[in-house]
């Protein structure tokens, strides 16, 4: 059995045994939903519906319905795409990278973080599929034999790399998530009594039995998938950054983009995980599994990635000055002092200053402070993409193509719609799916459970 130092803080609080873990995880599924759940789901579903209406309108009349214009041809669409994709990265980081580093604290949060990844990538996909202008021709993004003869996509283009990266990322994350869910669906199937629930979870559990051979394969598959997902997650946001970095637009054409985008993605993703987790642990009373220590650890990741992002911002400024390229220098001067300077300073405030507050232990262990700051970080990261895309495109090489930008209500509607979709899916997930990987959690109960740790300490004292 895995042994752990006595002075380490337990990961599972309270006096729990295997049965109680089962009971705690299944209670939202067996019990009735609270009034709050219905209210929240209704609000999210309404936003989602509004988004669908705006989306349908865009398909009907074309992307002219958006605020994008001749100079600013990428605006809210790509800002939202990059924002959502970035949010997704935390789920994979928690479930894959922390698995490779044997960080046991991931087990309280990995399931819902991965769910968040999947829903976030779905939201991101909406924007890229829509911004092509004729979404019914999106199949032409893939190298399919077609009626135009030898018309293949350009494999030298980072935009096509992105198609492959995002679709690989989405499908692999989905499979990784589902493989982990199967044993937990098996547990629910064996517990529920209502016939429709029994049927549904039998179907979802794929006939899981928990035999020793299956567990041994399960562990191997999880490990290899983690090993594959780790470089995958870094590649995805690197490739997203190539969309900008390989262009010749001043302010975009920088080699710092891949690491800076990946750090930013993890930064915003962890903020979103915190926003969701703090709500979930409260509603479903999961304080024993998502402890203050989990929150503190996630906040530490936010300090690290937030500081990397801060350093990247400063490096960009330095390199723009040091390069001696006037276009590059102007691009950054324009960001900080131009007509959209307010968005630059929101970005700086939210992403560089606010995470530094987590150096104080009082703040990083406070639930309310964490909740507020996690939302602040997400706003900041949205503005980062807005600054990179819109502020830059407003002022490109030729002053005659200089332009300004403001979103239309359709732009805002689709964005609000994706937030609604994300919320609706996440709320449905938290109601019908096991929100914590209970089978994995049971493996650390003996070594990291609070009461179990105490009893070994007493045992040691006797010797």
């Amino acid at each position, binding site marked *: 059995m895995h042994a752990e130092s006595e002075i380490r803080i337990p990961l599972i609080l309270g006096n729990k045994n295997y049965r109680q873990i089962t009971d705690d995880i299944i209670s939202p599924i067996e019990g009735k939903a609270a009034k709050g759940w219905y209210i929240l789901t209704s609000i999210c579903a309404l936003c989602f519906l509004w988004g669908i209406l705006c989306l349908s309108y865009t398909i009907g009349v074309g992307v002219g319905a958006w605020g994008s214009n001749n100079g600013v041809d990428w605006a809210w669409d790509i800002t939202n795409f990059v924002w959502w994709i970035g949010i997704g990265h935390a789920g994979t980081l928690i479930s894959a990278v922390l698995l490779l580093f044997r960080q046991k604290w991931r087990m309280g949060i990995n399931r819902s973080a991965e769910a968040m990844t999947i829903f976030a990538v779905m939201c991101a996909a909406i924007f890229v599929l829509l911004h092509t202008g004729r979404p019914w021709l999106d199949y032409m993004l893939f190298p399919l034999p077609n009626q135009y003869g030898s018309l293949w996509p*350009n494999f030298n283009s980072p935009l096509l790399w992105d198609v492959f990266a995002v679709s690989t990322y989405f499908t692999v994350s989905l499979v990784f998530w589902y493989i982990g869910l199967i044993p937990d669906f098996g547990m629910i199937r064996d517990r529920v009594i209502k016939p429709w629930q029994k049927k549904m979870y039998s*179907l979802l559990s*794929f006939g899981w039995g*928990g035999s020793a051979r299956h567990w041994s394969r399960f562990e191997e598959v999880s490990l*290899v998938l983690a090993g594959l997902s780790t470089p995958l997650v870094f590649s995805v946001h690197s490739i997203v950054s190539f969309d900008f970095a390989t262009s010749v637009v001043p302010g975009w054409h920088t080699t710092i983009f891949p690491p800076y985008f990946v750090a930013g993605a993890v930064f915003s993703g962890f903020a979103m995980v915190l926003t969701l987790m703090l709500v979930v642990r409260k509603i479903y009373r999961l304080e024993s599994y998502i402890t203050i220590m989990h929150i503190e650890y996630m906040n530490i990741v936010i300090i690290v990635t937030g500081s990397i992002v801060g350093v990247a911002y400063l490096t960009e400024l330095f390199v723009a000055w040091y390069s001696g390229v006037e276009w590059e220098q102007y691009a950054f001067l324009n960001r900080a002092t131009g007509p959209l300077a307010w968005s630059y300073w929101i970005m700086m405030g939210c992403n560089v200053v606010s995470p530094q507050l987590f150096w104080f232990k009082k703040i990083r262990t406070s639930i309310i402070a964490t909740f507020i700051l996690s939302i602040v970080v997400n706003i900041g990261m949205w503005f980062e993409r807005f600054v990179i895309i819109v502020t830059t495109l407003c002022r490109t090489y030729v002053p005659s193509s200089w332009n300004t930008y403001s979103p239309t209500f359709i732009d805002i509607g689709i964005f609000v719609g994706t937030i609604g979709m994300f919320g609706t899916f996440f709320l449905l997930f938290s109601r019908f799916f096991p929100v914590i990987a209970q089978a994995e959690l049971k493996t650390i109960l003996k070594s990291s459970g609070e009461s179990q740790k105490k009893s070994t300490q007493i045992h040691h004292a006797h010797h």
Partner: protein
Amino acid sequence: MTTNKHIIHGIFGDEVPMMEAIKKLRASGIRIKDVFSPMPVHGLDSLIGIPRTRIAICAFIYGLTGLGLATLMMWYMMISDWPNDVGGKPNWQYYFNIPAFIPITFESTVFCAAHGMALTYFLRCWLVPGAKAKNPDLRTTDDKFLVYLDLNDVQAKTAKIILKENGAEEVNQVKSYVVEPKYTLEETH
């Protein structure tokens, strides 16, 4: 001569006494057919003689397949079928373009390795939608550990004693059946 066989379920509430019991069963030459548990139990595989799974080797082979397919696809589409000259960067030779082809080669490798392995896992364990639950007792996905034995008369007797002595909460003989030998001595003569 016919043999009587007995299926025995030894149910434990904790993995530590179960592991002890399994060690003793193995020491007296009893084969463990399977163990059902709510979570993976480390060290169990070697104890009951399960060889290490080769699924990672499969993943490697699927990955190589993905790498090969992506290379072939990009060579055919970009170099052989319709070479282009985009922005003064011509596609006359594959090796000219290798840097630009690396991202998709990588993604395709990961895609095939991950999905190939996942499919192999599902089929090898027969985890498919609509498959019947494989655990013989509902409690094994909750908090019980079940040692599944399929033994003859003599071994069944010893196994039951060992299980009980080592803290099994229940020892159930769920089924007994008779195995007819395929060939009797008279027939072979």
